[in-house]
């Protein structure tokens, strides 16, 4: 029996299982929240050590990026992300993982054409559109401040 593309699309949707959001959303919330709590704890620790507000923010980010890079290299971050999803993707640790994982993966093609050329293969769009959005934001801010 011949099916049209529309009929087949309907059949496929009917049979293909959906993501279990009731399971994935709470996991993402808990693990993502936990990463944020760890970040807060690290920040509080730096503050307790007498570091000023601005430097505390920078140092906390650096620490989280380091931890993520380390766990990526050890093959642990990917395993956590399998369950956590957006919980590990959205925080700064996800960005670090997106940069470190291609750097490790494409080392076999050399430091120039491998690591150098492919390091931003995943994070590239975030950087490009993040920068573009910040420029637009800056222009809007400039115009609104004229009046």
């Amino acid at each position, binding site marked *: *029996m011949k*099916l049209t*593309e529309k009929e087949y699309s309907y*059949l496929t949707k009917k049979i293909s*299982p959906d993501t*279990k959001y009731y399971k994935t959303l709470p996991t993402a919330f808990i693990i993502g929240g936990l990463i944020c709590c760890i970040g807060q704890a690290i920040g509080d620790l730096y503050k307790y050590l007498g570091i000023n507000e601005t430097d505390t923010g920078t140092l906390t980010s650096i620490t989280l990026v380091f931890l993520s890079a380390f766990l990526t290299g050890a093959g642990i971050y990917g395993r956590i992300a399998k369950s956590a999803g957006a919980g*590990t993707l959205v925080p700064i640790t996800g960005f670090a993982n997106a940069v470190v*994982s291609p750097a490790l*993966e*494409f080392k076999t093609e050399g430091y120039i054409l491998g690591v150098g050329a492919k390091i931003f293969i995943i994070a590239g769009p975030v950087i490009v559109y993040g920068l573009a959005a910040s420029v637009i934001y800056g222009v809007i801010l400039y115009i609104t401040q004229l009046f």
Partner: protein
Amino acid sequence: MSEYLNEGTIILTTEPSVYSYAAAGGKMEGDGPLGSCFDYISQESDFGESTWEKSESRLQQLAFSHALSKGGISEGELSFIFAGDLQNQCTGSAYGIRDTGIPFIGLYGACSTMAESLVLASIFVDNNAAEYCAALTSSHFCSAERQFRFPETYGGQRTPTAQWTVTGSGCAIVGKHNNPPYIKGVTIGKIVDLGIKDANNMGAAMAPAAYETIKSYLKVQKKTVNDFDLILTGDLGSVGSEILYELFRKDGVDISTVHNDCGLMIYDFEKQDVHAGGSGCGCSASVLCGHILERVKKGELKNVLFAATGALMSTTVVQQGESIPGISHAVHISCE
């Protein structure tokens, strides 16, 4: 001599024999339900090599050398090797067998390549164009991931319909012999595209091709599904298999009683997190060469229709919004 019937179907009148066969795989495949069927399992996913591409070539060499030694034949006795894999330009195969000095025909049929290579090897032998031919394919999880998806250590989630690329290779040596399994007929499939664009739902993209090819073979050979002990698709996985049942049901045929899928057989769905099942050239190759052919040889299975399935896409065309064309080739394997 081979005789063309209709709809891509050819009968092989001399019924070439799958003289020898072997399968090699990775740790995860070894831990699966068919683990004991493999001739070689590596506990290390790199197979002792420095790149994933080399690992896959090594994997092919292992399946190839085991098939030769099990059959007690030397490389020099082979007329041709038909081999393919998923790497760009089929380098897994070319680099794997470059030192053999055997005339080589590189094939690309995505995950259907095991059936494609077996079809061609059998036709060559059937027509006295070769005495012995090797049909050989492989896939490696890591070389496939870095080419088609993400780096191995990237923290991403898979959709429930996604499949897991098998680290495995299978090799079948075809020749004229009086020992089963025999190849009775083949159907070379046509490309079928019903507009699936989701690269994470390959089962859905390939199921219509499997349906068309199986239907063609049955129709042209005037057989029914009940003439087979097993109709074995390549890597439709759980989603594609369900769709295949539904497509046959619309014709009033229940294929589910004799059907199985290599992608459903190779992993333990309870213990191994493989979502919709296994996939890759090595999936159907290792299940066929490690498990099914042996069962046919022993007479446990009398007639098997092996229909490996492939999605003929690349990341480039999928990103350009193209739909995914599917293909399936069928091989009738028998102990009679």
